[in-house]
């Protein structure tokens, strides 16, 4: 299974996302923002970083890139798409997911090992989790406060489209502790925390067992592979 990872100018976690795909058993395919050829990949990851320096608004300029336009088109036809952090911001700016992401309430960038609850395990990127499973993956953002109109929030909650919720501490002031969302169809998922940083023992978050041994992020990518096999 080939999963594409788009690199925009200013993307930072593209190599990490590629590694995560590899460790999950997939084949990572680097994609370049200026190229509208998605190289026939089976799924796409929009990685974290500061595309175009986060200028104008986070993800706004990347949302206009030729590769993104292709992703939008294919996503509407069911292509599994995962947007991580800046990638989530791109998804929101592309209107594949509703709402917006603004400066953290406390005004600082924050990097921490974040506990989340998996609220929806029916998406292409979460099907290997238990419902309500609690996981820890790193979070690192300056503009991760999720906001939307009351109607949108209500709709998201009613349709079970909140995929992840922050537990114990809301790190950025997100409404309803929302950490991640999906679209109606469940093929597009966006979240602020970084599953690709919790895929390899020794380089993930600390756990109760050993230093930096957390690999809860791996299931995101394995879920996508499973979804692709089943489809």
């Amino acid at each position: 299974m080939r999963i594409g990872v788009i690199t925009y100018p200013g993307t930072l976690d593209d190599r990490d996302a590629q590694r995560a795909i590899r460790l999950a058993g997939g084949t990572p395919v680097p994609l370049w923002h200026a190229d509208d050829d998605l190289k026939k990949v089976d799924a796409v990851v929009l990685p974290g970083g500061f595309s175009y320096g986060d200028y104008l608004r986070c993800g706004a300029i990347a949302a206009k890139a030729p590769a993104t336009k292709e992703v939008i088109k294919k996503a509407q036809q069911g292509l599994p798409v995962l947007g991580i952090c800046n990638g989530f911001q791109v998804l929101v700016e592309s209107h594949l997911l509703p709402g917006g992401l603004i400066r953290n309430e406390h005004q600082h960038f924050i990097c921490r090992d974040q506990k989340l609850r998996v609220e929806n395990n029916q998406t292409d990127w979460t099907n290997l989790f238990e419902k309500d499973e609690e996981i820890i993956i790193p979070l690192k953002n300056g503009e991760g406060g999720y906001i939307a109109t009351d109607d949108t929030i209500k709709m998201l909650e009613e349709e079970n489209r909140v995929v992840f919720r922050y537990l114990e501490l809301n790190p950025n002031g997100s409404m309803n502790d929302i950490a991640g969302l999906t679209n109606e169809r469940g093929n597009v998922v966006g979240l602020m925390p970084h599953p690709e940083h919790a895929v390899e023992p020794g380089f993930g978050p600390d756990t109760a067992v050993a230093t930096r041994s957390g690999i809860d992020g791996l299931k995101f990518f394995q879920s996508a592979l499973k979804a692709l096999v089943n489809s």
Partner: protein
Amino acid sequence: MFKNKNQPSGVDTVENAKSEPDKDQPWKELGLKQDEYESIKEILGRRPTSSELAMYSVMWSEHCSYKSSKIYLRQFGEKVTPEMKKHLMVGMGENAGVVDIGEGLAVTFKVESHNHPSYIEPFQGAATGVGGIVRDILSMGARPVAVMDQLRFGAPQDPDTTRVVHGVVDGISFYGNCLGLPNIGGETVFDKVYQGNPLVNALSIGALKHEDLQLAKATNPGDLVILFGARTGADGIGGVSVLASETFGDEGPTKRPAVQVGDPFAEKVLIECCLELFHAGVVAGIQDLGGAGISCATSELASNGGKGMKIQLKNVLLRDESLTPEEILMSESQERMCAVVPKKKLKDFEKIVNKWEVEYSVLGEVIDEDRLYIDWGHEEIVNVPPRTVAHDGPVYDRPVEYPKYQDALNADSSSKLKRAETEAAAQLMELISSPNHADKSWITNQYDKYVMGNTALAMPDDGGMMRISEETGLGVALATDANGKYCYLDPYEGARQALAEAYRNVAVTGAAPRAVTNCLNFGSPENPEVMWQFKQATAGLADACQELGIPVTGGNVSFYNQTGETAIYPTPVVGVLGVIDDVARRVPSGWQDDGNNIYLLGTTYDELDGSAWAKDLHNHLGGRPPKVDLQKEKELASLLYGATQQGLIEAAHDVSEGGLGIAILEASLRFNVGARIWLTELMERDGVNLTAALFSESQSRVIVSVGREDDVKFQALCEARGVPVLRIGVTDKENQAVDIQGVAKLDLAAIRGAWAGVLPGLY
């Protein structure tokens, strides 16, 4: 201004310099001394043009020329044995030293100061400090892989400290995070001596394959000199406005900013662009632009290659068309690089920079002549031997004087301070909740430590560790240290201690120390007492490197860190790089398993002078700093290396500031696992009282936790290596407490509360 090609533009040309030899020049305002100005005239055989004056003044400044420190820095090169140089691929003098780590891989690392700009404009000062050191690393051909920062702030409660802390931390966070470089460690110290002179040192480390090494030299005549990256603007050229006023006659000095503004996005793109250029083999030499901008890049590239250059300054792409030639030469605009590119590779070069949407312009070419010519349109404004600008600046042997206060300071021992043993527990709690020992995660949580996915250790562990090879797990560890208080009491011993501690902090992670970098922060070199401190500290560091057998690969000197007559404590920040064959063997700084034995390695002496106990609890600083025995440090490091190779150690934590008491609390807080501790045997064996047992800062000590199954092996190893070892406790997962028998049972939640709330409360 005249635009016509045949009419003079109003700039000061070489022609003018010859025809108006007696023109008054603002050399003094540019920071040159009379004799320096005279020697420029002697070199050129005429007065310099205003552009030449600009170049010489900035390149001969303390910051660029190391004129006061050069005679002392030489010993880092002299006190080195061939054995020490075994792994050194590039030593001092280049943008950064390069160290072979095996498997065909190398790393380059360096620490640099950005102190003064960070006081004037903390956010941009700190941000561009990160940007500058990263470009140094990049210009060696390496991919930057991590950063660290060494910070010294004023009194924690002072309102101006809040301004500086917020600005500096935001600046580092903004720039480093946006570049995608994990921040894996550093230091934060508060002391009112740094009130008007905060220290912002930034360290970066990069990785490269041996064959990717790049050097900053122009050796082939005919090669093109290309400036690329951000456009040149009026950044950091406040100082040259005296020249601008001269050029513009009556219009008065132009208002130019004294600070630089950084754009990390531009730098990130520049990094990827440069790496692609290196791998495509289109670059013959490369230099980053930092202080002194184009003046520095052109003269150094030419001088390093033993060649010359012919440059058309009008080809520089500008952000602001009103810049004068002098300003263009001195501009410190960030995110720029200067490459030397063979003509036949120009097409390949263009293809890559265009892909990354990076702007570039060809400034000129390398010539087979010992001359740097710079033209402004059709007029010649610079005509100098490049070496005289870049490398043959003035060298001073400044007066040195033993400080008048020194004897009284050393005589004022902490032994007069009351040791209330019944208050030991309260003192320990007070110390752990003092800003210097409190939780620093309010700062470090603002930095990305995960990006790149290779971080094996980061704060709060003693050293940062990065995996360099994903195939084999080969990695490097890095730690930096400097205790300004010790250095103030005894700069020679203090510098040795800084090295010893950084060396130890690398050793506790499981890596073998291999190379050294430094950033020497001092007061004014024109003060003979400061110069004495500098002389002592550099000698101490060079001697200690020789004794430990690890070479200095490069570094930086920052003078004039003083407010009025008051200098900062001498603060020689020392960074040690270690190599580990597989980062999977790394050791964290806290225990996690239940029932493991806790051992103290090393001997405790009654050494409380200059300690946190004396300074932070009693506001006393005097006496003699703890003794450093480097032979013991070596034995300890070799023991730790042996034990980690066999996987005998669960956790290891350096005992340093705050003593054993603080070390135990930190090791417990790391994973929230408590301990039962007994100190009576230690007090008996080493002949110290409880206060010394808990708070002495004796060197060459480490606490380790060892699983019971490995106990016999571990003790035997200690015995074989001759390292004193004493069991002082056992880890305890059940009781959420640190129970120091005969002292107090301290609840972990209470310790955490006292420790974690301090910085968020202040800032």
